[in-house]
């Protein structure tokens, strides 16, 4: 089996600088996200030349390079830009796994029948699908493919660098001369929950280098029991990777991009932001692409008035299509917003199959009324269109300008709620 790797180094930094790529010629790094650990993010090549690495404390980074420019991160643009690239890969039939923006893996073999008998042809087709300069390589394991892509030259925009495919059985030999710091990213992704880095990975790599274990070949040659004794489970994982062993791919399920966004004419915070969130939840639940599916995880993204953006993910204990439960999960995240927002977006990160309704034998009058109301709404929509039933949602009732008092949102009906009889907040 051959696994293809598409690697776009410093993807988050590229998203943060937008069209000003010339900035990357100088020392620039991502500033810490508001409310997070005071450490720099991805750094440009010029910054790395000063010894600046992602995760380094800001004070240390500025100490090493006083002229370092810190750019506010833009997680919203990063996520949406990377999602577009993943969709382009999926459009050629690739089942894609991606744990961080800028890195995608997919099985090449299944695509050979479509895009050419040679694995290089498939990888070249994937490179064209990505549509932006990227490093591309193939190998029998995910880690080996990433290592090969790290060493590859960027392809795209007229550049046609050769694609390296590591042959089956040759992964250990290929990895042997490579430095152990390649393990850093792989271990961070595998040992930590999505979106969070595990600092233990960085400590392991630093400890290996201090002990004189500089290449993956050095690490692979150490006795396994000694690795387990000194570094525990993380060390054993690193040992496996260095020997060319890796876990199988876990591609994501292709899904509709369920996202709703709203622009806030004036930078908003507090109650105004919560009302905007209510509106986004209603719109998300009323989106016909949802097709009755319940939502398991949501991501809320805000564009900040001072530049940059902010995002947070909320995972529900059980999938739900109840606006109250979605609001309970997401609203507390808005409290961590460090600056007023000029735009707010809500994205369904994970959805489940359509939620079935279990009728009861001894339905009470309230349930029967809800069912009749749901049916009435459905019939009105069939007769007069989807927008025939709307509800008024308060936005800024205290405003001096009446059109800011409220807006109309899709009425999702009482059947969408899994809390029978619960009145909708803010409805009129």
């Amino acid at each position, binding site marked *: 089996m051959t696994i293809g790797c598409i690697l776009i180094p410093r993807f988050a930094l590229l998203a943060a600088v937008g069209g000003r790529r010339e900035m990357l010629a100088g020392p620039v790094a991502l500033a810490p996200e508001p409310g997070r650990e005071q450490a720099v993010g991805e750094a440009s090549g010029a910054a790395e030349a000063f010894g600046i690495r992602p995760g380094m404390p800001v004070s240390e980074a500025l100490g090493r390079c006083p002229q370092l420019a810190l750019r506010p991160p833009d997680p919203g643009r990063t996520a949406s830009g990377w999602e577009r690239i993943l969709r382009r890969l999926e459009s050629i039939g690739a089942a894609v796994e991606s744990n961080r923006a800028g890195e995608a893996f997919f099985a090449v073999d299944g695509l050979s029948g479509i895009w050419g008998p040679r694995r290089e042809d498939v990888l070249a087709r994937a490179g064209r699908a990505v549509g932006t300069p990227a490093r591309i390589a193939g190998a029998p394991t995910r880690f080996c493919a990433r290592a090969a892509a790290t060493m590859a030259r960027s392809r795209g925009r007229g550049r046609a660098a050769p694609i390296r495919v590591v042959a089956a059985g040759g992964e250990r030999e290929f990895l042997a001369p490579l430095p152990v710091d390649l393990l850093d990213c792989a271990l961070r992704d595998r040992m930590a929950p999505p979106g969070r880095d595990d600092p233990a990975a960085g400590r392991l790599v630093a400890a290996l280098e201090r002990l004189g274990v500089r290449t993956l070949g050095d690490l692979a040659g150490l006795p396994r029991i000694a690795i387990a004794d000194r570094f525990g489970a993380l060390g054993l994982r690193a040992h496996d990777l260095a020997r060319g062993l890796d876990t199988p791919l876990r591609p994501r399920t292709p899904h509709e991009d369920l996202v709703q966004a709203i622009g806030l004419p004036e930078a908003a915070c507090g109650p105004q932001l919560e009302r905007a969130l209510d509106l986004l939840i209603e719109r998300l639940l009323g989106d016909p692409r949802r097709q009755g599916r319940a939502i398991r995880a949501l991501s809320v993204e805000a564009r900040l008035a001072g530049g940059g953006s902010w995002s947070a993910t909320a995972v529900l204990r059980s999938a739900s299509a109840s606006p109250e439960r979605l609001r309970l999960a997401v609203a507390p995240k808005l409290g961590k917003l460090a600056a007023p927002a000029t735009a707010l977006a809500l994205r369904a990160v994970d959805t489940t199959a359509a939620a079935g309704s279990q009728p009861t034998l001894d339905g009470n009058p309230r349930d029967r009324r809800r069912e009749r109301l749901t049916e009435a709404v459905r019939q009105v929509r069939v007769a007069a269109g989807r927008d025939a039933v709307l509800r008024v949602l308060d936005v800024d009732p205290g405003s001096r300008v*009446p*059109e800011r008092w*409220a807006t109309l949102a899709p009425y999702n009906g009482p059947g969408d709620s899994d809390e029978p009889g619960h009145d909708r907040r803010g409805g009129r």
Partner: protein
Amino acid sequence: MSRPTNPYAPRAITVATVGGRPRRIAGRAVEAVRDQWLVEDRWWTAAPLRRHYLEVVLAGGRCLVVYRDVATGRWYEQR
């Protein structure tokens, strides 16, 4: 069907005035002006908002809130 998004969106209306005071609104005579006020907002942006609001009573007894956009001079009805 285009989807309405705002129940309070202003609607353009025809107003006949005498000396700046509304006399007829959409063909109906104005019986009285009950109240009037000025709203100035967003003056700190590139799209400032200046409206002269009037709450009027029409000949049929209907109450109506209209405003004149000070910048353009156009009249609008607003619930």
